[in-house]
């Protein structure tokens, strides 16, 4: 028997996750109270709240990948995207909401990586919800001081001659990294190219994937 204590381990030997039996925190209670009040007063319906949560959950890096693939395929579009990110994604039916989108182009001599040291600002409209590590203090505090060490932990080792540019989303801009187009993708159309554009490459902690 790998474990003798049957109260704490499942038959597979892993510990059970504890039930969330603790009372609500103040802000959890406040959120429920506000939500119930808005429903009671007819400001929102429960259906609208559920639909909004579903819409937020349904956004994914696929939208950002389409923007990148278009920029790789169409140099005029790329120029517009770098000049005014918000306007260029509007052309494709995506919206930057109240925030302004800045697109950062990676080149063989320059690599961009994005962080929000103050909280977790992220281009959710193009990439969906941020990964947990993006919101954690370890990433936020370390990538501004030791970006190359952090990138190497993601498996991205850059030559010393490549300039690393870290971008801190401190205010009203949101940032999308335009990764370099992988080699061996010359005849590929936008749909095929978009499959190579992973989320991490648009945050700047990875490169786009090589074609299979």
């Amino acid at each position, binding site marked *: 028997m790998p474990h003798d204590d049957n109260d704490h381990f499942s038959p597979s030997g892993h510990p059970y996750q504890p039930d969330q039996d603790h009372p609500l925190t103040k802000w959890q209670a406040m959120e429920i109270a506000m939500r119930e009040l808005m429903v009671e007063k007819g400001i929102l319906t429960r259906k609208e709240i559920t639909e909004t949560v579903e819409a937020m959950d349904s956004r994914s890096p696929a939208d950002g990948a389409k923007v990148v693939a278009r920029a790789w395929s169409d140099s005029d579009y790329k120029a517009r995207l770098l000049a005014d990110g918000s306007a260029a994604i509007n052309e494709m039916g995506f919206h930057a909401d109240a925030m302004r989108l800045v697109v950062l182009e990676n080149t063989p001599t320059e690599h961009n990586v994005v962080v929000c040291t103050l909280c977790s600002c992220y281009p959710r409209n193009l990439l969906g919800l941020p990964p947990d590590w993006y919101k954690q203090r370890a990433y936020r505090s370390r990538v501004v*001081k030791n970006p*190359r*060490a952090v990138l190497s932990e993601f498996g991205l080792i850059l030559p010393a001659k490549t*300039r690393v540019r*870290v971008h*801190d989303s*401190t205010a009203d801009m949101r940032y999308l990294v335009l990764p370099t187009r992988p080699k061996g993708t010359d005849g590929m159309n936008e749909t095929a190219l978009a499959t190579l554009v992973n989320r991490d490459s648009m945050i700047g902690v990875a490169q786009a994937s090589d074609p299979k």
Partner: protein
Amino acid sequence: MTKKFVRVKDWFPPGHVRTPYFLRGKIGMIERQLGAFENPEQRAYRQKADKLQLLRVRFTMAEIWGKNAEIPTDTLDAEIYEHWLEPIDAT
């Protein structure tokens, strides 16, 4: 455009502030001007917010971290509102 250098004020006011602590007192170059945006220091408290110029300022890692910089010529860009910046003479 000539390179314009600015210093982030070495202020430590209370309240909601969106100027990172680690950039206070540091000198950087204006990377681009972004236009006018509402001051978050007022907006956070539901006060009528002034529209302030927002600038992207580029700092070298050497300027921020001194001899502890990983590679001194790597850079960090941040958005800083105009009232946090003071002009300095390019030297």
